[in-house]
């Protein structure tokens, strides 16, 4: 990704760190690691770390992740902020300078998804998260997270956000008065399947240790929120968390979750004695720890959990730190106010959409069949052929939606058909023909704007499940149709070519293209491009995921070879499946 290729769904992190002990020893490398961690942790496509030199009070670039090498070289060690004596001016300058910086380097060309207060103000973005970040009991910076799509939050997300805001306010009230007896900081992290799916398993297992390092915390527990049951389960934890605790299962959205957690921990007896720094609300409450940080965590634009951070030793904060805290609390409160007005929409909406997508072609089949039966003997052969064509197209689309529904509920795919002899050019042609009515419906002339000549394509015969190839091709073609842009200028080319060890079915179209920065995300489960929402394109966002999985099951792959103008996808079929003539 280049620095200028940020886009609507990109959620960068602007992150200000200072006075982190281990950074003093190995600053460049550590900062780089934290930038990468911040990027991965928040599912962000870019992360910028800034560093406040406490002596000169200058803000400098520490490290970047997700930007191109040239940009990183240009920014390395640059000083960003001239020091000011007044604390208030310091903060104001910080925001203004960040604005200026982003504008000067044209970081976020499209102006959305930018994450610092200055740009957010300019583009009227909504803050969903402004989380204080502390180290060693001291505020060292913040995670900011802005979006213009607050409507993506569900009722359940809002309930959680409300809880965060209340805690943030309590934090502000308390930290001025509390006197420490001992220092104790812990983290409870709750991650949903979204992040787990994005990150490789070994990364998740390393995450607790790395998070502890990042926040100078002795303990970190990573939870997974299971969407279907609403249960929280431990999926990774630092080494001193014992097996009993790892087996905990908590109802994440029960009103009394803190007390439940406390009871469960208490019932484990020795756990507490052995590991005195467990940090969850129930435990913290029982021990009188003060919450310094309860930070919502988001992946994509969905709230997936939180980081909690407690201490018994909240040191006196400086004025500018308090200002920052108050800003965070205010922003959290504003977030809640705004989140209140958004419509509930989690999985229920996705199911409604898929059911609609499934019912529509079935209604089409029903209407055409009833019409043919009712007018039997009265229809011309052309009319009959057209109705049958429509029935065939709708059958294919209904089957694709059945696969989406099965996928959404986590069901297993049916066993593969027995492998058959498949003539690749024919299976591609069949998929195209099946969708001829869908092209026509969109105003695309199938004959002049869709280019595929099976008679020119080489006759490649493979042993495979034709249904899988058909579904992958159908899924790509449906996307081409949905995102065709102006149908008059639309063109689609399908080709079959040999590339070393693979046969490649390439589907290229002159549609609206894949927005910059989303090239990988389009394959994510349930991801829908912002354009899909803006253009009100129906769909559930699982088609590409399923198609890629199907191809991988065959030993092949599905890749985006060019994001736009033309948008090209390659269906990779390994030559090992080829059936050679004897």
């Amino acid at each position: 990704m280049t620095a200028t290729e940020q886009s609507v769904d990109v959620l960068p992190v602007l992150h200000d760190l200072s006075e982190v002990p281990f950074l003093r020893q190995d600053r460049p490398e550590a900062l780089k690691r934290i930038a990468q961690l911040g990027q991965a942790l928040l599912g962000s496509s870019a992360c910028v770390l800034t560093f406040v030199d406490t002596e000169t009070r200058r803000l400098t670039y520490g490290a970047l992740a997700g930007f191109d090498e040239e940009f990183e070289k240009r920014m390395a060690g640059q000083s960003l902020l001239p020091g000011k004596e007044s604390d208030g001016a310091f903060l104001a300058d910080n925001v203004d300078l960040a604005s200026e910086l982003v504008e000067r380097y044209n970081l976020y060309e499209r102006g959305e998804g930018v994450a610092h207060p200055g740009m957010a103000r300019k583009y009227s973005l909504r803050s969903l998260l402004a989380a204080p970040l502390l180290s060693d009991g001291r505020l060292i910076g913040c995670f900011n997270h802005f979006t213009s799509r607050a409507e993506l939050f569900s009722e359940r997300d809002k309930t959680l956000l409300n809880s965060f805001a209340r805690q943030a306010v309590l934090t502000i009230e308390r930290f001025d008065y509390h006197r420490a007896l001992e220092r104790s900081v812990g983290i409870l992290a709750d991650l949903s399947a979204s992040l787990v799916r994005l990150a490789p398993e070994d990364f998740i297992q390393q995450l607790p240790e790395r998070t502890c390092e990042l926040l100078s915390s002795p303990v970190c527990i990573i939870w997974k929120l299971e969407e279907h049951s609403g249960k929280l389960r431990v999926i990774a934890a630092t080494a001193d968390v014992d097996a009993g605790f790892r087996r905990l299962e908590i109802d994440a959205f029960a009103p009394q979750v803190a007390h439940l957690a406390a009871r469960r921990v208490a019932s484990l007896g020795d756990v507490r004695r052995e590991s005195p720094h467990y940090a969850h609300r129930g435990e913290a409450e029982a021990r009188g720890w003060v919450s310094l940080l309860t930070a919502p965590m988001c992946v994509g634009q969905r709230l997936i959990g939180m980081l909690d951070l407690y201490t018994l030793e909240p040191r006196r904060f400086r004025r500018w730190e308090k200002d920052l805290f108050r800003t965070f609390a205010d922003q959290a409160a504003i977030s809640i106010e705004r989140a209140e007005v958004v419509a509930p929409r989690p999985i229920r909406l996705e199911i409604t959409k898929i059911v609609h997508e499934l019912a529509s072609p079935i209604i089409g089949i029903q209407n055409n069949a009833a019409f043919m039966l009712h007018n039997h003997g009265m229809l011309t052969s052309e009319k009959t052929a057209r109705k049958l064509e429509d029935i065939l197209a709708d059958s294919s689309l209904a089957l694709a939606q059945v696969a989406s529904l099965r996928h959404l509920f986590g069901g297993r795919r049916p066993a593969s058909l027995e492998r058959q002899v498949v003539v690749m050019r024919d299976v591609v042609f069949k998929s195209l023909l099946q969708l001829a009515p869908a092209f026509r419906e969109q105003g695309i002339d199938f004959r002049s704007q869709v280019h595929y000549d099976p008679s020119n394509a080489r006759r490649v015969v493979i042993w495979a499940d034709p249904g899988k190839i058909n579904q992958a091709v159908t899924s790509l073609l449906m996307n081409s149709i949905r995102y065709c842009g102006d149908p008059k200028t639309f063109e689609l080319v399908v080709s079959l070519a040999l590339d070393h060890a693979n046969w490649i079915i390439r589907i290229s179209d002159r549609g609206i293209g894949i927005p910059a920065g989303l090239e990988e995300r389009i394959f994510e489960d349930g991801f829908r491009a912002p354009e899909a929402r803006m253009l009100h394109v129906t769909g559930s966002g699982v088609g590409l995921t399923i198609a890629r999985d199907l191809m991988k099951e065959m030993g092949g792959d599905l890749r985006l070879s060019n994001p736009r103008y033309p948008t090209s996808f390659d269906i990779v079929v390994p030559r090992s499946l080829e059936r050679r003539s004897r």
Partner: protein
Amino acid sequence: MILFVDDELRRMESVVEQLEMDGLRVHTAPGVDQALAALHNDKGEIDFVILDIMMDLGSTLEHEDTEEGLRTGVHLFERIRKVKPTVPVMVLTNADDVRLEEHFSKEPRTRFFQKRSLLPQDVAPQVREMMRDDEW
């Protein structure tokens, strides 16, 4: 003339053709904007509306909360009523939502049907019955 508003006209083509074979005139509109344009330009010809619910918002309803298109037809219905307060409206939808049925059952000169329950040949008789019915 029937104004037939549906964004999936290909799938409703048989219904439209059957209505025409049954002697009714039909003007099709594949979305909100086209439907409103047809109503505004109407010179008294449109005397019946068949209305889908789950549709694109179009530029007219762009800023309204239609739950991502799931309730577009509800908003369009209100606009239709402003232009033609007494025109009979047949709501014909895939939306399987009891709240929608309740909502439209309170509206005068309006009936709610699931697409799955009306075959193409069943639509014309329903339309004629609704047009005849003066008790509304």
